């Protein structure tokens, strides 16, 4: 039995956070909003199961990310986003530091970007990222490391490991 009240509470409490995370992964606010909405709709579609998962937010994030990397979906999203928002300029009102980071993130590979966002923004450990993405922990470590290396020349100061 799907409980609309629990879904509404979950949606209201997490949607902004997930749009922020997806924006960092996709670099597009419109696409992030579309993908997150689609993922929530899919969550409601099977809310009787998803609500029983330990971390429904991770489920929605994973689905939203998968939606975003679907090429067919990407094309459809771009058309829909263009209709709604016109030419993408949704970064204008944001902090320049953040815009620079997102711009740099868009230039590294999708898997590296996903790992970096999950680690630095969502705050997941390597093991948790491995579980969420289905990759081996060693692979996640490699993606984080190479992602940092790839970001370094893209950001003025690079990204250095904390001591």
């Amino acid at each position, binding site marked *: *039995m*799907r409980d*609309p009240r629990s*879904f*509404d509470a979950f*949606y*209201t409490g997490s*949607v*902004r*956070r997930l*749009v*922020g*995370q997806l*924006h*960092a992964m996709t670099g597009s*606010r419109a696409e992030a*909003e579309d993908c997150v*909405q*689609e993922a*929530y*709709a*899919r*969550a*409601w*579609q099977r*809310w009787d199961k998803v609500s029983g998962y330990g971390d429904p937010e991770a489920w929605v994030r994973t689905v939203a990310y998968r939606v975003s990397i679907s090429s067919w979906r990407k094309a459809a999203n771009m058309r829909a986003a263009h209709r709604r928002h016109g030419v993408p300029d949704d970064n204008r*009102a*944001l*902090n320049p*530091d*953040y*815009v620079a*980071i*997102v711009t740099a993130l868009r230039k590294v590979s999708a898997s590296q970007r996903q790992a970096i*966002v999950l680690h*630095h*923004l969502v705050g997941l450990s390597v093991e948790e990222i491995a579980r969420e993405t289905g990759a081996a922990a060693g692979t996640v470590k490699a993606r984080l490391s190479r992602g*940092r290396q790839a970001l370094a020349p893209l*950001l*003025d*100061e*690079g*990204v*250095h*490991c*904390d001591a």
Partner: protein
Amino acid sequence: MRENEFRARLRAGAAELGASVNPSEPELIRRRGDRRRHRTMITSGVLAFAVGAGGGGVAYASLAQPGQPASPASGHSATAGPPTASPASAPPSDSAPSIVGVTTGGAIQVFSSVTGLARTTLVQKTDAIGDAIAVSPSGATVYFAVKRGCADSIESVPVSGGTPAVVTSGVLPAVSPDGTRLAFVREPSGGGPSAVQYGCPGSGDATAKPSALYHVVVRDLATGQETVYPAPPDEIAGMPYAISHLSWAPSGQTLLVSVGPGQGNGGWGLSVLDTATSRYYVPPGWPAASAAAVPVTGSPDAARSYYREGVFTPDGGMFVNRMCCDGVPVRVTSSKLLKINSAGQQIRQVAIGFTDRDHSSLDAYGGWLLYLSAHDLFIAGPGPARKITTGLIAAAWVP
């Protein structure tokens, strides 16, 4: 940029962006999810139709809504009747007839017969026995059987909601077409052919002979007066013949009694009980049953095929699950959902069932039929059956 600085900037920016988001109302998201769910059901059905392997043996191509008038039930074919509104192009009407069901989790819920979505939950948690739920012709009251230890009881709850009330002891409730009488079964324990248990007082009494313990009972709902129809005394054997379903004829006089199995995967069948003239119900396969049993005809192997369950349809026909073959070792090679006449002759094939699934909880309303294939709920109108929802152990139309 140090890693912690990178992290802080990333988080601050994402939080800033998130704060500026004006998300859609959750209700809109839910509607979108519901539309997806509906499209998924339709797509899966069309795909199943395309490959000829729908759940329960059929797929659905008919998108007619139960709310639409169906063609006359007798003799209609899979292509008879005008197509009605497609759920894919028009939102499902909330006025479509409802289905009441017992979920595998024990809740009693009212579902839309179009979308399969639950409309209301009448009872959150019961120990309801499967394949045993009935609704009064007025659509106001749901009757269901509950097992509590050795005490099986029939309870009722208003469709509009309320507290369940015990009606009497027994299982397998069926309300007469005029709503004045409740037919049910008193049996040793449990409900259905596979749930016979002998751990309860009296149920294992060899001297009583198990078959003598199965009674069809008709209770006047206004006065509480009961008429009991036992198996005939000269036919009582030492083996049980569990009754699995009861269904009233449109006349309100005759009951269709689904029976079986007896020992050795035999004794299945449908027995017609005239409540006005009969003193006994006769399990199919017994010598005295020849006049009362619904004959099995057609293929495959009519001699070894049997009716697993059957119900009357409003036009006086029968909707049955015809299976093959009885006997041991148990090996099911055919399971069909059929519309037949009282002579056992096929009017039309409603669906082909999976041979490894039980098909139960048959019910008819107008020209519409429903049944469970394991826990999947299928409905069939003039066209092929389609899966509506899953997770049920009993279902019935709400008139």
